[in-house]
């Protein structure tokens, strides 16, 4: 009998713990989920914000833009980070769950097309990139490189970057266009894995957000069709919109922000928050902030 009483005590304790957790969640914790591209950025914001507000508890997780938006619709996160626009389908689904989704653009990202530093190719046009990803061009010599088969790498389909490159590079801006990534394209589960592979394979080409660019890979210059010049991806060229492959980064909120979430959003838009955007190698919203040099 005593054992039963112990058990009851134990359950009571568990129950209280859960209650406590639920209580804590309501007041000062924020769940942020979504784009892998934005995880580091979100983490940097969260750390800086929590320094100022020691009571706040912010958890940032990745999984892809789609994962974040799905979580937002299912009510399991407070802010979804997304590197692509929410689709009409997703808006409809959110509406059916009585969510009044708010979209906020919190920064800009440039997609770097990367190759191995030993690759002599320096610049490509969007048409050439499209042909490479669809498998029409299979050898580097066709784009004035070495005589070597191209190893094409892409991000997985749950990545917002994948969807962006599919629509704006592979399909050249026609969202529903018939072009597809060739079946032989390797799908990498993360930007780090892709960087690792490009840095070790001389024949590889891949892409990821400017924030992941390291010295172990080389970013290609891409032809801007309006000015007819080749432009390298950088914070400057993305801000003055001369680099053709850049996109907005969004926050999606299930309703008008209030309480701690509002404080956090305000922080993100503050000068300090936008400086963090620059420090994590993304492009801040206000053009004058480009003058501030990054720390590293």
């Amino acid at each position, binding site marked *: 009998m005593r054992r039963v009483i112990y058990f009851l005590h134990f359950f009571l304790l568990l129950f209280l713990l859960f209650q406590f957790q639920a209580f804590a969640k309501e007041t000062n914790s924020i769940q942020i989920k979504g784009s892998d591209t934005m995880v580091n950025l979100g983490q940097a914001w969260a750390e800086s914000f929590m320094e100022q507000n020691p009571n706040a508890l912010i958890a940032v997780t990745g999984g892809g833009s789609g994962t974040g938006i*799905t979580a937002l619709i299912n009510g399991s996160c407070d802010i979804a980070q997304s590197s692509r626009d929410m689709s009409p389908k997703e808006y409809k689904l959110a509406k059916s769950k009585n969510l009044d989704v708010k979209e906020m653009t919190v920064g800009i990202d440039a997609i770097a097309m990367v190759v191995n530093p030993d690759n002599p190719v320096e610049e490509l046009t969007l048409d050439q990139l499209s042909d490479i990803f669809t498998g029409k061009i299979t050898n580097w010599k066709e784009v004035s490189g070495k005589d070597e*088969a191209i190893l094409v790498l892409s991000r997985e*389909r*749950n990545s917002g970057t994948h969807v962006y490159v*599919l629509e704006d590079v592979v399909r050249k801006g026609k969202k*529903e266009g018939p072009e597809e990534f060739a*079946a032989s394209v*390797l*799908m990498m589960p993360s930007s780090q894995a892709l960087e690792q592979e490009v840095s070790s*394979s001389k024949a590889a080409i891949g892409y990821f957000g400017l924030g992941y660019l390291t010295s172990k890979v080389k970013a290609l210059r891409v032809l801007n069709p309006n000015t007819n010049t080749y432009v390298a991806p950088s914070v400057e060229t993305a801000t003055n919109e001369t680099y053709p492959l850049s996109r907005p980064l969004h926050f999606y909120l299930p309703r008008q922000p209030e309480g701690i979430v509002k404080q956090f959003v305000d922080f993100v838009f503050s000068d300090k928050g936008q400086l963090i955007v620059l420090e994590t190698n993304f492009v801040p919203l206000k053009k004058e902030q480009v003058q501030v040099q990054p720390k590293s």
Partner: protein
Amino acid sequence: MRKYYEFIVESLIFISGIASILFVLLIFIFLLKEGLMLFKDLGVFDFLLGTHWYPISEPPRLGILSLILGSLWVTAGATVISVPLGIACAIYIGEIAPGWLKEILKAGVELLAAIPSIVLGFIGLVTLVPLVKKLFGISTGLTAFSGSLMLAFMAMPTIVSIMEDALNTVPKSYREGSIAMGATQWQTIRRIVLPSASSGIIAAIMLGIGRVIGETMAVMMITGNAAIIPHSFFQPVRTMTATIAAEMGETVQGSQHYSALFAIGIVLFTITFMINLTADLSLHGKKAR
């Protein structure tokens, strides 16, 4: 009071006992419910034998032949590598190694089983993948072969520990009898011990294969995930498990893509079920004799 207490404990134990069966049933029903929706507007054979996997296009093309073949290639490779190694290892541990070494080896094998698959995958990505690329002079090390090699490590502990148990159940008198007839130790192992433990060995192999085909994280990291029909081991492949893991987060609930991923789950479930059934039958076949 005591009777009351007894009743509660008994029913709790009963519920725990049938819980696993209940869970399997519920999981299977859920899989069927979500997955079979797909076949309302897509033929079963178009799905199983279709060669194009473009789930996020309009309209989506959902053929999983390349994914099934990808899983089978990786599994076959891992089996070819891990079975001989595993059998040899189990024979050494069970029959030949002296007592103290036996304990160390057993602990080592168990430790290998305890390494999380994502850790193995990560180690494979930074060490094995560049090595395979260099060794075979291919453009990328992200191939079915790398996946097979890594998964072989994961299947080994399962094969070794179950097979070692099987060897243990062979009565000592068999071995003594064989040696008394003038047979050497190797002859004893080959002609007496292995045949009498054969059903346990088959079960060990089958469970090892079951482990490999369901493995997800490591294969997703090191096989390249290109949905093509593989022609050699040194090509990237995309497995069924990696496809589900990589795409589930993106799908809208109730969409065709979503049901297709569940339908892949049904295919996987069917395969692992058959493997486990084979293992079970071979174990029980022995008891009946």
